[in-house]
């Protein structure tokens, strides 16, 4: 239940953030300085690969039974964007630790959970001018989840929980709940191999 509601990942996010803070506080000043010197910001993004799903729904809508228009624009508009930062901390000259986090994205009828990204980058020279690289990362959290609406169908159907987007379709109201977004991030496990030659 905790997992289903997404609190699990939020809690992980909070724990990780607290742990990172604790690490930063407790390391020695020299160690911290060294760590910071070896750490580089390698990527900053606003939004995630899943952000396009609610965004694409914003232009849609339908009429209520009385004729009033319902627009999805407000429901799926981004209230808080997902800020994603990615860092690389050098462990050795040929090995780096990739880490980062996403703040999560929120709209009225959806959310993308906060996320934590970790991974490794290994490099090895190939000849005099070549460089082989292997990068493996995983993202924990970052699920897209959609909130249900409460629809009033009057005498024929009463008040029911429904998928906001599908409330006016021929699908049974309770069945629409099966189509609530529950998407994993596309980068939950990524591996890439690179080979670069300078000439």
């Amino acid at each position, binding site marked *: 239940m905790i997992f289903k509601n997404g609190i699990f990942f939020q809690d992980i996010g909070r724990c990780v953030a607290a742990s990172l803070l604790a690490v930063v506080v407790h390391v020695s000043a020299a160690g911290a300085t060294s760590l910071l010197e070896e750490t580089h910001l390698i990527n900053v993004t606003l939004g995630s690969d899943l952000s396009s799903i609610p965004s694409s729904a914003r232009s849609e809508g339908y009429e209520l039974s009385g004729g009033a228009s319902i627009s999805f624009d407000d429901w799926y508009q981004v209230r808080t964007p997902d800020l994603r930062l990615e860092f690389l901390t050098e462990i050795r000259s040929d090995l780096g630790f990739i880490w980062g986090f996403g703040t999560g994205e929120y709209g009225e009828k959806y959310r993308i959970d906060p996320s934590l990204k970790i991974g490794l980058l290994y490099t090895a020279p190939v000849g005099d001018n070549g460089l082989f690289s292997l990068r493996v990362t995983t993202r924990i959290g970052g699920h897209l989840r959609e909130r249900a609406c409460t629809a009033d169908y*009057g005498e024929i159907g009463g008040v029911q929980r429904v998928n906001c987007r599908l409330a006016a379709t021929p699908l049974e109201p309770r069945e629409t709940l099966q189509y609530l977004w529950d998407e994993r991030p596309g980068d939950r496990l990524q591996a890439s191999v690179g080979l670069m030659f300078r000439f």
Partner: protein
Amino acid sequence: MFTRKIAAIAATLALLAGAAPAQELSFGAMSTPPVQGWMSSDIGEAWSQGYKGRGASITVIDDFSSRNYLAGRLTGGWTIGTHGVMTYFQSALVAPEARFRIQDFTNTRSVRLTRNFDVINLSYGMFAADGYDVNNIWWGAREGSVINHARTGNALVVKAAGNDGVAVGTATAYGDQDYLASALIGTRSALFVGALDRNGSVEAPASMAWYSNTAGSDERVQDQFLTVGVDSSRLGLAGTSFAAPIISGYGAILHSKFRTATPTDIANRLLETARTDTVVNYDPSVYGRGEASLSRALAPAAIR
């Protein structure tokens, strides 16, 4: 009393006693046909998601065996068949996943209900000289059962309004009257369906087709009367016979959404959500409750 198919092309038909039960058909076994040009845009929207009538059973009582053929453009090209083939095929195009039962005019057995949600399509009338008391008519088993299903609310009974240009339940210019319509007035789950000249919209409202019967001044009829577009330029057919199957299909589609709703609930829903802003000079004595709107019938009244 004689049966008259409610098409612009009227045909005489002798009633013969029959013993065969209603024949079961399943259109859903075929691939789902596309939205047709004569259909309201509402249907296309409804088809984008959903079951298209699954769980409902539509019984079409009509002429399936005579040699009187009609030609219509139900699927773009010309389809030739009896009046019953046309009305069955039309409702099957609207609600392809419903189960269908056809009962030929020659079969006068009572209409038995199925275990599904029952819709009975009546694109015909029972005519006799004006002046009889409808409460004293000795109905045969078939019409008697249909009237009873409408009275008890056990089936959604969809009745073509008629093509005499008069109010439902009144005498025609020929001095006869559709007593089947009269008997259904005031019942719980019967709908009368009139024909508009096309599918209406706010920008281009539709008018009542010149031939269509109207709701008239009887408020009971007005509260049971709906209209839908019968675009003869696209359909190649005219008559309220081809309005009723659309509403039968709508009823089946509504049931696929509101599975616990009764036939009376479905009838009321279609009536309550009918539009009055898509017809020219809306008047309840002409249009009844207005033009049926499937999309509004499917939509909630409020959502948050």
